[in-house]
């Protein structure tokens, strides 16, 4: 069952949560809505589910070519997993999972034995069949989340929607559950959309990622596409760490730090200011000039606990920056604090235009947007 929403807008009082958002999710796909708090991702999910109504004038919400925009939340047959699980606290695990079947009108309600069979099967699927008679408060966070998922799947939903499914879990459980969910999705192949503010989660789990900010869709693409070919400044700065420089293009050349590189796509520009972004691992570091265009920098700090060495540097032109290099190469170079190095960028992202508000305005060049509540 594919999902398509067209031109969805939603305002809460004076706050615009979504403005003119369109999105298509293919059948069987697992799609992440990724963005910072307040980007509208949860609102979009709730509108797809029918828990919120889009503003009048919004376009249709199509489940496999059928417009469900006017249908109530109960009639849409979606599975919804809430951030805080929202398990029925006075019901056992079994009753929680059975709820969606028990509340059906008598004609559509499966027989008791059928319900029992289906719930047991679902509990097996989420590996909690021995917990059927427990109450939610007797379970750990990860177990509760799996029960919430089993409950959502019990009604055989056309689409599965998950709101920050791992948001309330600690880091280790979150990672395990993430992989488990990916395997589960590969097994049952229900069209799924999940909301997250955690880029690792989105990039690792999803077939495609929808990056959102301020109620807009910034980019839709595979994890590889949005990470390596970000189409906007926001996506560049939001996904992973990035070094920011103010630069200038003039006559086919890009100038930033103390560097001049070829920029044939800007051949027509006459001294236009640009914003330049380079990821830490897109710098080549060497202790001497090796022919590639490079600028001089001094090592300030070294973090070498990990597969890569991370170096904090100060460029000759005064800009602080952060680079990453493989540990063995770092060891071979014999770099220490205070060492002069030559830094040459391999991959540069340049953005022109006046949308200064999306560029980092503080002097700190390293944009690290990790998970934020």
């Amino acid at each position, binding site marked *: 069952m594919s999902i398509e929403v067209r031109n969805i807008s939603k305002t809460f009082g004076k706050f615009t949560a979504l403005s003119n958002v369109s999105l298509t999710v293919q059948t069987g796909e697992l799609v992440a809505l990724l963005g910072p708090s307040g980007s509208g991702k949860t609102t979009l999910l709730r509108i797809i589910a029918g828990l919120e109504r889009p503003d009048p004038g919004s376009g249709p919400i199509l489940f496999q070519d059928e417009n469900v925009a006017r249908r109530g939340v109960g009639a849409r047959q979606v599975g919804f997993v809430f951030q805080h699980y929202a398990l029925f606290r006075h019901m056992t695990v079994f009753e929680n999972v059975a709820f969606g079947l028990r*509340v059906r009108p008598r004609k559509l309600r499966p027989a008791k034995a059928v319900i029992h069979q289906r719930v047991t099967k679902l509990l097996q699927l989420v590996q909690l069949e021995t917990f059927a008679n427990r109450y939610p408060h007797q379970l750990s966070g990860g177990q509760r989340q799996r029960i919430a998922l089993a409950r959502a799947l019990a009604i055989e939903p056309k689409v599965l929607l998950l709101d920050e499914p791992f948001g309330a879990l600690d880091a280790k459980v979150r990672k395990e559950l993430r992989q488990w969910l990916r395997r589960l999705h590969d097994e049952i192949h229900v069209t799924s959309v999940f909301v997250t503010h955690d880029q690792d989660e989105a990039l690792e789990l999803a077939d495609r990622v929808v990056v959102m900010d301020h109620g807009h869709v910034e980019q839709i693409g595979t994890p590889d596409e949005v990470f390596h070919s970000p189409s906007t400044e926001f996506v560049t700065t939001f996904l992973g760490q990035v070094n920011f420089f103010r630069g200038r293009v003039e006559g086919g050349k890009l100038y930033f730090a103390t560097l001049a590189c070829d920029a044939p796509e800007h051949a027509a520009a006459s001294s236009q200011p640009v914003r330049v972004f380079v990821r830490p691992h897109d710098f080549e570091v060497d202790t001497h000039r090796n022919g590639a265009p490079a600028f001089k920098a001094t090592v300030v700090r070294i973090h070498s606990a990990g597969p890569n060495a991370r170096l904090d540097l100060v460029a000759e032109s005064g800009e602080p920056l952060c680079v990453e290099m493989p540990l063995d190469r770092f060891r071979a170079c014999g770099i220490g604090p205070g060492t002069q190095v030559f830094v040459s960028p391999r991959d540069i992202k340049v953005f022109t235009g006046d949308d200064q508000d999306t560029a980092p305005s503080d002097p700190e060049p390293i944009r690290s947007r990790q998970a934020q509540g």
Partner: protein
Amino acid sequence: MSEAAIRIPSAAQARSHAAITEPRLVRWALIGVALVFLGLFLVVPLVAVFAQALAKGLAVYGQSLVTRDSLAAIRLTLLVAVLVVPLNTVFGVAAAWAISKFEFVGKQLLITLIDLPFSVSPVISGLIFILLFGRNGWLGPWLAAHDYKVIFALPGIVLATLFVTFPFVARELIPLMQAQGTEEEEAARVLGAGGWQTFRRVTLPNIKWGLLYGVILANGRAMGEFGAVSVVSGHIRGQTNTMPLHVEILYNEYNLVAAFSVASLLASLALVTLVLKAVLQWKVARQLALAADAGGMKP
């Protein structure tokens, strides 16, 4: 939410407890003062009520309860409670539901209005109804013309009692329902439950102890209300006298044994209410703790 995470603050609490503990003498003195106060102002009066009621023996006690007027008062009080408590249960649940689960204009005003009966003297509450339905009141002439009797009759007593007991159920439920949030209801709706199914299967079980607690408090007040009812009832013996009013009349007639006999019934009701309240309070606290634990907390 692991067990360790729960244990750590409780251990810290125990430690800080030890740090602020007073010397034994001070502790005993404080407990003693509290007990003496409690004894003087609560236990002694209670014992006095029963002692006075039984002063002339069990037979007289029984006789003074089964007089025509006493029985009529008991019957009226029960009737009022039977009418008022269910109505206020429905109103209270509806008001608490609206306030805790929806956002709307005028919500603060509604919360304030619900508290109004607590802040207004019951006598004033009674007078409001006289002003509205009394012979010279706004609706008085119309009521008289159609031969409806409100003031100095059962409807007036019921209205006044409804008014003074209105806050109990709602006040008890609002914090509980607010703590529980709306996610469970949303989950039920997504799973296909209708409005009534959601209420009966999800909301009601979650609030049942709090609701019962509110109902018991409302019932205690409905049976014991004096001020407002006194203004609207007219004190007609055997007809519009509730138990508290009947106690006053008997007392004013120096019929102490009869007065205290009826009073002892009210006192017993109070004791039962207290015990139930203690039990239910414990249950409500558990429900609230579950609300916090079962993921009902908001980020």
